[in-house]
């Protein structure tokens, strides 16, 4: 047994962090978020070769697995960088196995998204209906990257998912309404399909959705870890500069203890996120429970950490001008994205067979 990132993984994290510092400094990120247009960042992300990291070569990626994807999620969150397109695509792209051209397009910027509500655990989301001619009808509210997706992977079937079908977002019968999130580094849209032509994807729908659920749990937790690292950095830095009563506020024990509690959350999260990523990749018997625990624990701690960091900052942290709110909102959304802690805890309870 060994809890350790490999040398390659450590090198990747360092390189990607450096790239983000260069390409996505805070002032530039804020311009993209204010404009509501992440395409400049996304095209650079793809052009510089990051999109295939963590996806198998067999699928058309550059190799690696969920640990590498979790590193990506953590670093994107640390930069408050736009990530809806990336996250939606890595969760949906395994459904495109067997369609190398479509995978290639997805990794080249034609975002593909699972047509499920962003607050749902993907394998428990309601499915849409399909008729004998393959025309799909139904609605999914709040679909991640629903506003920018080129294609949707749609779970269909009466009384549970029977299969996954691919739909072109530009096809007649597709209507979508973008919803504006507080956290503008992610985006969702309500998507309605009315008699939309579709192609059946030749994959095991249950397996793909299970995989997407486990991946979503780990990657959103990794995102929360990244956001929590940043709120801690910001709070500690501020506590050393800000003086009251003649001393830096970071010398006061109340402030130290609050910061120490966030650090405990960060190190706990780091310990378990990469473990769960490896567990899901390795197909461990309890992999989904590991992913569930990570989603429930890490994202709940992330919200507490963000709240505490705000208190350490005082009024300046409450302003639009200060960067803290970027990470605060990111942590808040992460707690709810693809299943709130209470939902994932119930999933654990199911798995533990308490009755």
């Amino acid at each position: 047994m060994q809890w350790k990132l490999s040398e390659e993984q450590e090198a990747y994290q360092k390189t990607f962090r450096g790239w983000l510092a260069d390409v996505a400094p805070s002032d530039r990120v804020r311009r993209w978020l204010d404009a509501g247009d992440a395409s400049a960042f996304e095209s650079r992300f793809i052009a510089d070769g990051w999109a295939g990291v963590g996806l198998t070569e067999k699928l058309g990626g550059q190799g690696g697995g969920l640990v590498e994807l979790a590193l990506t999620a953590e670093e994107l969150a640390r930069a408050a960088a736009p990530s809806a397109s990336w996250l939606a695509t890595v969760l949906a792209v395994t459904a495109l196995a067997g369609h190398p051209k479509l995978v290639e397009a997805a990794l080249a910027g034609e975002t593909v998204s699972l047509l499920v509500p962003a607050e749902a655990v993907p394998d428990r989301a309601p499915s849409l209906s399909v008729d004998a001619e393959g025309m799909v009808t139904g609605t999914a509210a709040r679909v991640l990257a629903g506003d920018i997706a080129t294609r949707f992977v749609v779970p269909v079937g009466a009384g549970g998912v029977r299969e996954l079908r691919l739909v072109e977002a530009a096809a007649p019968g597709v209507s979508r309404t973008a919803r504006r999130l507080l956290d503008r580094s992610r985006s969702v849209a309500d998507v309605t399909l009315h008699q939309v032509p579709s192609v059946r994807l030749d994959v095991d729908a249950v397996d793909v959705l299970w995989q997407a659920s486990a991946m979503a749990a780990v990657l959103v937790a990794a995102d929360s870890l990244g956001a929590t690292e940043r709120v801690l950095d910001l709070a500690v830095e501020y506590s050393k500069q800000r003086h009251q009563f003649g001393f830096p506020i970071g010398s006061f024990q109340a402030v130290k203890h609050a910061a120490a509690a966030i650090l405990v959350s960060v190190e706990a999260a780091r310990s378990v996120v990469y473990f769960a990523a490896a567990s899901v990749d390795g197909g461990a018997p309890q992999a989904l429970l590991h992913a569930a625990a990570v989603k429930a624990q890490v994202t709940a701690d992330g919200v507490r950490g963000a709240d505490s960091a705000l208190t350490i900052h005082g009024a300046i942290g409450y302003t639009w001008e200060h960067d803290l709110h970027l990470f605060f909102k990111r942590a808040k959304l992460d707690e709810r994205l693809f299943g709130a802690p209470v939902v994932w805890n119930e999933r654990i309870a199911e798995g533990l067979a308490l009755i």
Partner: protein
Amino acid sequence: MDLSDDPDEAQFRHDVRTWLHNSLPKLPWPEPADLGAKAPFWRQWQRMLFDAGYAGLTWPKEYGGQGLDERMRAIFTEECDHAGAPERLNTIGEDFAGPTIAHFGTEAQKARYLRPILTGEEIWCQLFSEPDSGSDLASLRTKATKADGGWRIQGQKIWTSRAQLAAHAILLARTGGGERHKGITYFLLPMDSDGVTVRPLAHMLGEAEFNEVFLDEVFVSDDAVVGEVDGGWKVAMATLAFERVAIATGRVNTTKAIEDIIADIRTRKSADGSPLGADPHVRQKVADLWGRALVHRTISQRVISGAESDELPGPVTSIGKLYFCPLVEELADFRLSLEPLGGQFALDDERAEAQRWLRLANQSRGTAIAGGSTFIQRNIVAERILGMPRS
């Protein structure tokens, strides 16, 4: 990133499991609850461990240990918990004093003290805290004055666990070479020395587990000093670092605790006759504790992986205790909450299973205070790791 057993780990686990299965029935069960009666029971067990080659797993071979790494110790502790092995009575000897002597001691000290720790012949205690020096350990006032061939020690220590059983103590005393941290020396003290008085203190469950220890002109010879005279602080800090690794390798197995709770819940019914495991509050609580036990396990593995690769203990070692203590408290409290009146009965009016959790609930409060209370740990983490200014 692989937390499954390597082939050598799997083999070791298998061997340990088989040995425990065959050996545990040889003990005169039940394990006594009273500390005095527990000592001979434990001693028999420790001798069995020693004879089988399971004592001092991570200690160097030349001192009677097995020369294995922390992974094996973690596996061994895990298997002992699963098999229901006796409580460890000599944690100060095995986890504090032994590794410190092995690292800083003279050859004579190593030859004299290490083996009897492993055989179970000699239990150790720790004479660090004083009535006025708890969190602020460096303010300690117990004084060692140079005498012919040794030192005369005068002072009082307190909160000394198992001093009533101990053959030896690790002791910090002021030798006067400077202020605070600079003038402290680390001694090894035979507890049967003239002038040592042990007075038991009852803890909040009413049992005498820790003690006051009075030192009245106690003589120790020059060869009882560990490290340099006036250089004891450095040695003491190493002792505490060994303790943190020991805590990480499984002082309390939270995974086992939640598994026991789950097994218990499966047998219980709610007041209305429905299965307790169907209660949404119970389901949420169990899932939360299961998740946190998993987090604790991964933190421990990370510490062990760090220890194994000889890296300096990173932030995760220091935060381990801060994560672990409240978790153990909540595990025990939740399990007690399933008992009538929340298990709030005197120990002698409670059945053994509930007693076990009541003890754990209280011990965990003690653990959160011992070796640096939660608040002090947070100060340390904030100042040393986050670089926040000292008060």
